[in-house]
């Protein structure tokens, strides 16, 4: 098996002709600088630590005394430098100049200069000195650098690598160092612009002039490269740290991570020095996912899993197992990728492959992952999916995979909520997920859970609970290593809060919240479409109420790109408001058909809203029978799904229809039953409309009462109407204000309060001159 043994050796043999095993660490000029920095610091510190001797004037120069805060600053700086990629000297000097004591800084610069001027000898001596420093502590109890500390490990690693260099390699290192040093204070580089005759080609080549290694040049010219300035070298360790850090940030708080372009540059940089680093391809894959770049993401994913094999493993049997695992997860990831881009069938095919392989090897963990993907990919809302989720919950709990359990619990809660389970049971079930998240401290899932609860409460029509849950998402302490979680759920919570503000007519605050979301999730990031949708919706609702048709249609166009269904519903409403009844009718009926045929895709709330919009349209055109049937359907549906608020709203619509059909007493009794819900949970508009309807019903009902009773009911209606007008004013709904003012004037007239009547009439007149009525739409609306 000679061949098999030599394979590991063979495949480490890179394409660039490097032989021998590559070290995880390398000595680079930057690292030399760091070593010098630390060394000088230690030298200074050593002086301080010298035992106090009587008779000897132990007066340390204040220059040389290091205060505690200076120590702290120095240590954090060094730690940061150790973990970041190599920097050019200029950058390093900039960073250190302000933090270091001038004394250390001078020594540092002097020593670098010495290295530069006096060839390899001082460099080699320096490493010997370092070695001595580690081995000979000044006092046995207190060495300058303990060899197992972070710095000690760094020192030892560097010394080891340096010792293993051959002389010719040392000269190479020295040449690199010289170049590194010259970038800052060396002799001026040959100024090429002087040398050129100034032909056309020179100007073309000048951009790429600074690029050095040929392959490097190719890489960064793709990326528009300012490589030689920003680029740093990654040793294997630095690269690993970089990948884990950026990977974590991408998942946890995208905003904190590097911008996609910058990150991609760093990744190609990293691959340059570590071509066999599979993880870098995965990071690149994640980076591409966030900008929704399909092709590169696919390439990266495949590349990553092709490369993802560990050849250092000696145990052959163990290795094959590991490879199988990697292959299964490759398929699983592929499924995820396709799902993210909406390729359901492809995703399913990949998933099936993963499942088959996992089954063959009895890999239950992988199977659980696959299962949770499966119920995500499969059509939501049928019994099969529900049973899949339930199985996933049980199994993953058994195998203690808390994140999958938590996710599945949430999925099942959602499923149940959509399928007419009792709200109490759904919310209680969500508790299970909360407990799990708490036990395993999964801040990400906590946020998701609260966001989902907010959505559930919203669906059931409990505005305050929904608002509270959204605020909880924002208030959770999700920091991991000082970075707060900033994912989809956070964005949703913000949007939800914005909507609640908007519903209250508090548009300024709403837009403020949206702006916050904008900052947290810049437009090119994954979740930006959420706030974009909400922004357009709020804009639309606002401009519709204040009759700014231009703005409204603009918002509609914006919405169309983001959420097709919401767009259709709103465009129907828009046309209705504009009086374009026939188009509105056809739009809404088509939408309703679409919703009923694809009922699984929608939350039960949506069809109810469509029906109410249709009912509104019928009312406007005086077709009470059709309106009633829509309303009743809506009532049935909302009752079935426990959508309390929509149920009440439908009842209000019904009362209005009854009023129009001259059955005010029926309407009143209906309103009496449902008004509380609307008033406590409804938006500003809904509250005003309900109250308006109530006032009208009372007045209409008053006709059959005795004169005194009638008067008191009229007075009551007047009271209500003032509230209504206030609410409408809050929303800038001028037409409705006008309408209500007119009605109030009529009431006053009825009561014989001429002065008040005239005041109202005057107000109306003013409003009418300000906002003349254009549309031919009837006033017959709720």
């Amino acid at each position, binding site marked *: 098996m000679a061949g098999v043994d030599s394979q590991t050796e063979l495949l480490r043999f890179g394409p*660039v002709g490097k032989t021998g095993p590559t070290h995880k660490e390398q000595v680079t000029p930057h690292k030399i600088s760091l070593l010098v920095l630390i060394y000088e610091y230690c030298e200074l510190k050593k002086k301080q630590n010298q035992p106090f001797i009587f008779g000897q004037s132990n007066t340390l120069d204040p220059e040389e005394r290091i205060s505690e805060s200076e120590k702290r600053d120095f240590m954090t700086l060094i730690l940061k430098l150790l973990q970041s990629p190599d920097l050019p000297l200029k950058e390093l000097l900039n960073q250190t100049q302000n933090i270091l004591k001038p004394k250390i800084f001078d020594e540092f610069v002097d020593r670098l200069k010495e290295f530069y001027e006096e060839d390899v000898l001082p460099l080699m001596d320096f490493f010997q000195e370092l070695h001595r420093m580690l081995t000979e502590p000044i006092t046995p109890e207190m060495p300058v650098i303990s060899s197992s500390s972070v710095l000690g490990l760094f020192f030892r690693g560097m010394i080891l690598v340096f010792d293993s260099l051959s002389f010719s390699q040392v000269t*190479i290192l020295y040449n690199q160092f010289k170049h590194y040093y010259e970038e800052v204070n060396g002799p001026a580089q040959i100024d090429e612009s002087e040398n050129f005759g100034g032909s056309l080609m020179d100007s073309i080549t000048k951009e790429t002039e600074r690029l050095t290694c040929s392959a490097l040049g190719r890489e960064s010219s793709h990326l528009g490269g300012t490589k030689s300035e920003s680029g740093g070298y990654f040793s294997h360790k630095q690269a690993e740290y970089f990948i884990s850090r950026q990977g974590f940030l991408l998942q946890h708080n995208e905003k904190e991570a590097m911008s996609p372009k910058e990150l991609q540059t760093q990744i190609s940089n990293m691959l340059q020095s570590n071509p066999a680093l599979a993880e870098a391809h995965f990071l690149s894959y994640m980076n591409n996912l966030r900008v929704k770049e399909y092709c590169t993401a696919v390439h990266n994913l495949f590349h990553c899993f092709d490369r993802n094999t560990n050849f250092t493993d000696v145990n052959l049997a163990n290795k094959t197992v590991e490879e199988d695992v990697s292959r299964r997860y490759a398929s699983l990831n592929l499924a995820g990728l396709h799902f993210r881009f909406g390729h359901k069938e492809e995703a399913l095919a990949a998933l099936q492959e993963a499942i088959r392989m996992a089954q063959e090897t009895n890999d239950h963990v992988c199977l659980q992952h696959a299962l949770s993907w499966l119920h995500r990919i499969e059509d939501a809302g049928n019994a099969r999916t529900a049973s899949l989720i339930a199985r996933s919950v049980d199994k993953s709990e058994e195998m203690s995979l808390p994140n999958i359990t938590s996710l599945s619990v949430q999925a099942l809660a959602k499923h149940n909520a959509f399928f007419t389970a009792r709200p109490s049971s759904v919310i209680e079930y969500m508790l299970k997920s909360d407990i799990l998240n708490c036990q395993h401290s999964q801040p990400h899932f906590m946020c998701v859970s609260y966001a989902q609860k907010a959505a559930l409460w919203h669906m059931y029509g409990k505005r305050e609970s929904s608002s509270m849950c959204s605020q909880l998402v924002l208030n959770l302490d999700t920091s991991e290593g000082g970075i707060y979680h900033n994912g989809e759920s956070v964005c949703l919570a913000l949007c939800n809060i914005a909507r609640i503000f908007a519903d209250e007519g508090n548009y300024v605050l709403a837009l403020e919240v949206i702006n916050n979301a904008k900052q947290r999730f810049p437009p090119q990031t994954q979740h930006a479409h959420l706030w974009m949708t909400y922004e357009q919706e709020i804009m639309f609702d606002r401009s519709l109420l204040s009759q700014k048709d231009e703005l409204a249609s603009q918002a509609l166009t914006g919405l169309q790109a983001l959420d097709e269904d919401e767009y259709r519903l709103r465009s129907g409403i828009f046309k209705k408001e504009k009086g374009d009844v026939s188009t509105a009718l056809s739009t809404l009926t088509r939408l309703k058909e679409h919703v009923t045929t694809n009922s699984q895709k929608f939350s039960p709330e949506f069809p109810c809203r469509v029906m109410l919009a249709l009912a509104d349209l019928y009312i406007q055109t005086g077709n009470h029978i059709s309106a009633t049937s829509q309303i009743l359907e809506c009532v049935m549906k909302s009752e079935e799904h426990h959508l309390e608020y929509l149920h009440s709203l439908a009842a209000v619509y019904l009362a209005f229809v009854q009023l129009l059909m001259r059955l005010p007493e029926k309407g009143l009794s209906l309103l009496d039953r449902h008004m509380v819900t609307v008033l406590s949970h409804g938006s500003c508009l809904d509250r005003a409309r309900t109250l308006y309807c109530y006032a009208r019903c009372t007045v209409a009902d008053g006709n059959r009462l005795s004169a005194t009773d009638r008067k008191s009911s009229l007075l009551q209606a007047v009271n209500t109407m003032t509230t209504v007008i206030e609410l409408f004013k809050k929303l800038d709904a001028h037409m409705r204000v006008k309408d209500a003012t007119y009605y109030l004037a009529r009431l006053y007239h009825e009561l014989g309060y001429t002065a008040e009547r005239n005041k109202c009439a005057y107000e109306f007149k003013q409003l009418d001159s300000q906002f003349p009525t254009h549309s031919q739409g009837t006033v017959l609306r709720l």
Partner: protein
Amino acid sequence: MADISSLFKTFTPSLSSIKADLLRANRECSQRKLFHSSKWAAELLYSIEAPVDYKQILTVQERPDFVEEYDKFCLASSFFDLKEYDRAAFFVQDCKNKKAYFLHMYGRYLADEKRKLDNAPDSIGPPDKLENEHLKTLKTELAKKYAITELDGFCIYLYGVVLKKLDLLKEAIEVFVDAVNSEPLHWGAWLELVTLIKDKESLLALSLPNHWMKHFFLGHIYLELQLNEEGLKIYQHLMDKGFVKSSYIVSQVAMAYNNMREVDMAVNAFTELTEMDPYRLENMDYFSNTLYIKEMRADLAHLAHRCCDIDKYREETCVVIGNYYSLRQQHEKAVLYFQRALKLNPQYLSAWTLMGHEFMELKNTTAAIQAYRQAIEINIRDYRAWYGLGQTYEILKMPFYCLYYYRQAQKLRPNDSRMAMALGESYEKLERLQEAKKCFWKAHVVGDMEGMALIKLAKLHERLNEEDQAASAYTEYINEANRMGTFSAEDQSQAYKYLANYHLLRNNLDDAYAAAQKCTEFPERREEAKGILKDIQNRRARSEGAYPHPVRMDDSLGSICPDPLNISTRTPSVCLSPVNLKFDIGDD
């Protein structure tokens, strides 16, 4: 360049003048230490049989400035021959004449390249920023002179080489075009151009000198761009013109056949080449590939032995030996030799791919994947590596996963039926039959190499109950199989059976009969076929009985005449060929 024949109208110079040109080129190149180009020229001029006045050509008048500094040039030249490039460059640094200047720059270039290569195994840490410092200085100096057109053709070539090394490819192309225009006899410049042109469009866009060297260039680049037919045509023409004995041309022809997978022709050409130039190692790796495909073990062994004797430290030798071991199923050793080839030349692409194949044979899929990936990393357009990766994952039973790789391979070789077939088979496994159908159809259209596309297509149609398409595909398959002389009992019998049933259903009793007859030739289907035949007979009887001809003129004949005989005269497929006819008579 669409019409190659029109191109040759410009091919006017006589062989003698070409030979004189080549002689001059050889001398110029060797003076400038451009060894490969001078070798090429010498090889070609050796092959031309035409009278040349050597004496006149060999006595050349050197330019006075050259003669003046001849001593320095001589010294530099000697150092150059001893591979002491720095020294060579140093001693001619003040020379004014063009040749010395070239030697100076070339010496500096080579010295730097040599240093880089020597340092490569020592390389540590980041990609060295200093690495190209020298190249850049060279570039600046050359660019300065280039701008004021002070460079001769050879120096322009050197400038291009430096640009190419710096990865400034677009500029490099322009410069090389300039170089061949001012020094068309320098083969090296042409050759550099070949490596830079990636497609036919950019080739057509070049403004090349109308020199006889252009034909050699075109032939070479057509081969490189896989336009093998065009390349072959050019070489054929050159051979007609009197370059028959050129080993270069023969080797190119062999390579063309090799690319076209005309294995027999390639073997012939390669054999001819080895006879002409028995100590040649170039192209022998491709020769070994063809021998491998033909499974000519003895020849391959012989070739391996010979190559090993000539120079065992050449990558070609290693590949030949690797191929030999691979053919002998000694895959570990094969891997070892491919590995050695890679050590000699890390950029040697096909060794990675071949190694991938060997690892596949060794059932070490992970190593295979790594090897293929490495190959792709060197050249992302290597379709064999993509295909290999696809195969690997297919073997690992990941048909969906391997689709990606096959797609890549297919994209790179859109006209290769093997890729389309692989893709189709994967789709078939995934039950995505519509896609599979498209792939098989594509494979058939682009010229199916394994003869499997049609039968697969037919079976798919059969599965999808698309009867008409299935029948026509089966028919086509049978025609194709008959034409090509391929034979697969299983597939053919199935085709005949399907056709028989198909025609039977449509009451084309004659066609059904013919197919069923054929079907009886296959033992495993004989019983079914007989069943069908019986069915046909029944139908015939019935339909004849049902004919609205109550009165038959000759009643007795109908009953006496045996049915099969009656049919055989009517069946169009059994129309006898003249040969058979003659035979029958003779037999009588």
